[in-house]
């Protein structure tokens, strides 16, 4: 069979080659949700650091204009923290729903198998 390869020049294989060339790769990230959760945790730590810096800065500043700068920095910290929380919830929910879907499919299959088995044994009786 190796001598004859009718598929070698086939349009389907050329199309396949083109589609493979166009494939987007994730760049070696096997688990994007895990990476997102880690990123969210890092961002949250960064937000906490920003808040501490802003708090210390504003409490040591006597000029209200300097304090305004630290308030802006604190707001930036809040935004980073909110972003981190959003990313964490999104990634966690994605992981959870993926597991839930797999579980649902598995249980559905098991139920169908039980039903079919019951139907078969009913027919035999």
């Amino acid at each position: 069979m190796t001598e004859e390869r009718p598929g070698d020049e086939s349009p389907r294989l050329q199309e396949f080659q083109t589609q493979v060339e166009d494939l987007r790769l994730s760049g070696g990230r096997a688990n994007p949700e895990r990476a997102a959760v880690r990123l969210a945790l890092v961002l949250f730590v960064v937000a906490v650091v920003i808040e501490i810096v802003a708090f210390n800065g504003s409490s040591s500043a006597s000029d209200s204009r300097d304090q305004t700068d630290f308030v802006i920095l604190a707001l930036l910290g809040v935004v980073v923290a909110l972003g981190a929380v959003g990313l964490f919830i999104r990634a966690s929910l994605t992981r959870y729903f993926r597991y839930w879907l797999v579980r649902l499919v598995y249980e559905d299959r098991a139920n169908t198998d039980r039903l079919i088995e019951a139907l078969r044994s009913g027919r035999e009786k």
Partner: protein
Amino acid sequence: MTTAAPLLELRGVRAGYGIIDVLHGVDLVLQSGEVLALLGPNGAGKSTTLAVASGQIEPSSGQLLIGGREVNGARPDALARSGVCLVPEGRGIFPNLTVTENLRMMTFAGTSFSAIQEKAYELFPRLEERRRQLAGTLSGGEQQMLAMARAMATDPALLMLDELSMGLAPIIVDELYSQVATLARTGLSILIVEQFAKTVLGVADTAAIMLHGRVTRTGRPDEIAEELTAAYLGIESGGHQ
């Protein structure tokens, strides 16, 4: 494929589940238009190899190449859409849907339902007689036919079959493999994973033996057939790749 690159190639692939490595440096080559039989005992890593080739498991090291392009990290659905099709062990059909509904699920790739039905029933006329029957109530052989028909409906460029013969009577296995031979004659590249070799070696152009997460021997089916028993029993045959 016009390029000289193999349709599918695994180079030094290591992969597994969590921290447990199952594949310890798999090297495998499937040329375009070829039928490759990957044989080995239970737990050798054959199904994991297919999971890697179909993008379900990303190699921890090594390369997965399709048509010469490294596709480590490609999403399994993207690979499936482009034409890499896996018929998993256990058939992977929807047992609580009818035969027709199972075929309708394959319209995801954009192929019309009528074209899918036409192709499926041409390949396996028995499915047309059973089209309103729940897939779970089909016989094992018919379920496998449905699984293959679903795979062929997407017009794959690379078809991977995992344990096609599992739990089936020899006469049904022969019937299924005669269909595989028909598909192979159209130039479709096929990678078949099996534990039991007799029938598959009659269809394959090349065969490989897999043991303990490595491909230990690749060769012509007649050569492999002679070494298979020894390999399964863990006796060194000396002909390592």
